[in-house]
């Protein structure tokens, strides 16, 4: 029994590794600069954001190192978008493979999320470079980023699993998800500081911060950029249990995703 489990696990690891490598190789295939683009792309994007928000719009002038603060939000959100969009089409897109081979189905979804994780890693390196330029102090607190990224990884993967299995049955999901992502982008404090919302409606700000993505982004900003960041924990009174809601959402969605995906996975070959 244990040997069989190991055998199964071994297959998944081999496949996962190869799929991630292939995906990375294919991404910039045929472009002149190749892998350099994985660095150039975020650099160019950051340059644009920097110019627009720091020189023209001048939002968040009261927040120190607003440029880096902004970058974290954008990069973390982009990771979530990439994982969930990859995940959405992962199963249906590989329908041909599903019908011809039996392999652990979840590997395809996980592979998409690892590819995005590589991208996130590259982006974080670029941000670190910006942090040096901006003179953001490096502290031990920074290590908190790791568990927060793990939380983000789990949450994004859970949503990706759900979407990938739902998309097999309901082909409208991709349009709906596009709209949800658009809305989510503005409902999460990415481009603007949450203090803007607090000034208008404290309830709205509190609600927004219950979103796991908002919680993760604000927490990472808190530990990496400036302790002046308003986090989920800081908007609620001491002793309130509400700051636990984002974690609860992560746990519930991960559980639902695993149950639903496991239930549906054996029938993917015939349902697609």
């Amino acid at each position, binding site marked *: 029994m244990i040997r069989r489990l190991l055998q199964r696990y071994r297959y998944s690891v081999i496949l996962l590794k*190869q799929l991630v490598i292939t995906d990375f190789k294919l991404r910039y295939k045929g472009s002149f600069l190749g892998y350099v683009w994985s660095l150039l792309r975020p650099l160019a994007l950051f340059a644009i954001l920097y110019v627009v928000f720091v020189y023209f719009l001048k939002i968040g002038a009261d927040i120190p190192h607003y440029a880096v603060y902004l970058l974290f939000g954008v990069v973390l959100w982009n990771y979530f978008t990439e994982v969930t969009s990859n995940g959405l089409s992962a199963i249906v897109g590989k329908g041909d493979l599903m019908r*011809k081979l039996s392999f652990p189905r979840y590997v395809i979804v996980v592979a998409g999320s690892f590819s995005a994780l590589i991208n996130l890693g590259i982006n974080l390196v670029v941000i670190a470079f910006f942090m040096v330029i901006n003179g953001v102090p490096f502290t031990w607190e920074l290590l908190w980023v790791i568990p927060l990224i793990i939380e983000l990884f789990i949450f994004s993967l859970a949503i990706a699993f759900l979407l990938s299995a739902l998309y097999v049955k309901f082909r409208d999901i991709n349009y709906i998800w596009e709209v949800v992502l658009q809305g989510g982008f503005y409902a999460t404090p990415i481009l603007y500081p949450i203090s803007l919302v607090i000034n208008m409606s404290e309830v709205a700000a509190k609600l927004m911060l219950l979103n796991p993505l908002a919680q993760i982004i604000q927490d990472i900003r808190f530990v990496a950029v400036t302790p002046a960041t308003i986090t989920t924990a800081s908007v609620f009174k001491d002793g309130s249990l509400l700051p636990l809601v984002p974690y609860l959402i992560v746990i519930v969605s991960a559980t639902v995703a695993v149950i639903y995906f496991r239930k549906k996975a054996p*029938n993917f070959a015939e349902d697609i």
Partner: protein
Amino acid sequence: MAENKIAISVNNVSKDFVLPHEKVDSVKSIFVNPFYKRGHSEAQHALKDISFDIHEGEFFGIVGRNGSGKSTLLKIIAGIYQPTKGNLSVRGRLVPFIELGVGFNPELTGRENVYLNGSLMGFSTKEVNAKYDAIVDFAELKRFMDQKLKNYSSGMQVRLAFSVATILADSDVLLIDEVLAVGDADFQRKCFDYFRKLKKNKKTVVFVSHDMNAVREYCDRAVLIEGSELILEGKADKIATAYTKMFIEQAEDAKDTKQDGRWGDERAVFESVKLSSKKLTNADKTLSITTTAVVNEDIENPILGFSIKNAGGMQLMGTNNKIKKQNLPNMKKGDHISVTWKVPNVFTDGKHYVDIAIVYRDGSTIADWWEESVAFNTLQEENTPYVVTPPIELEIHSKRGRAQ
């Protein structure tokens, strides 16, 4: 025998496919029509209560007509589909060979595709490394391995896919679908060589086919699936004969003639074509084909001929009166002409088709060309896996040698 261990055990496997009458595949339909009674669907029974065992080292055939459920069964054995009822157990590593080159990506190089395809079959980079040179040698593609797959000819792609599968799949159990046996003659030969090698090495192989000659030649045992049920299990030869018989018994005469494969300027047209028998056995020494044609407009010394092809479309034999140096008379409008061919019965088991034609004297214009004008079936007592089975006599002379 040491090969009595069971490699694959199929126990009471049933498979239903649910065919919804109105497929709910958009979220909209849930909202638009929330009270519509869902679950209004029909189950299609693809397999009903199938049980059999495959022993280690056996070359096992799954035989059945299109739509009988044999491919579904193979997919269940491969783990692609889940059985609705029943279960199956597989001992050892199973490599499904349902299709070659699954997951090949045209944007990757030949080398990268080898590793990707290998990983899909569950082989690590290390394992592929060890066999990489052998794969390239077998495919005869050494110079091309660093080129993108999209620049390969289709023949090269098949060669690469086949060698990856062949060299890597050194597994305990192999599943082979008949799609494998397509390709040019050279490639088919390679396939069959490979089958022979598998058989020699005592691999467990599950082979799905409706080529009875291949089943007879390679399989030890087989099962016959018909109408979603297992109707016979036993020696390959017995199954192949039963399959052929089933085909002949159920062949409907109405379907034997094809009208759309007919063309010509209709200066003379066939009125009828008759066979001495539509079911040939060894008792029939000859097959008579009688064709009757009517002339619509005067035609000088037309040429009338026929050819016979087997179910695989291979033209086996044929002739015409010009080759036989027997001229037909000049014919006037309204004349009838009847020609009878007496063909020795050298046919191998299975369905055969007769093509007939009338053409102008110089062969320049076709008056009437009728493909598959009539069909007949053969079921011989003495059958071979070759395209024809002529009566061959065997003499054995044995002489006792001197003791050493």
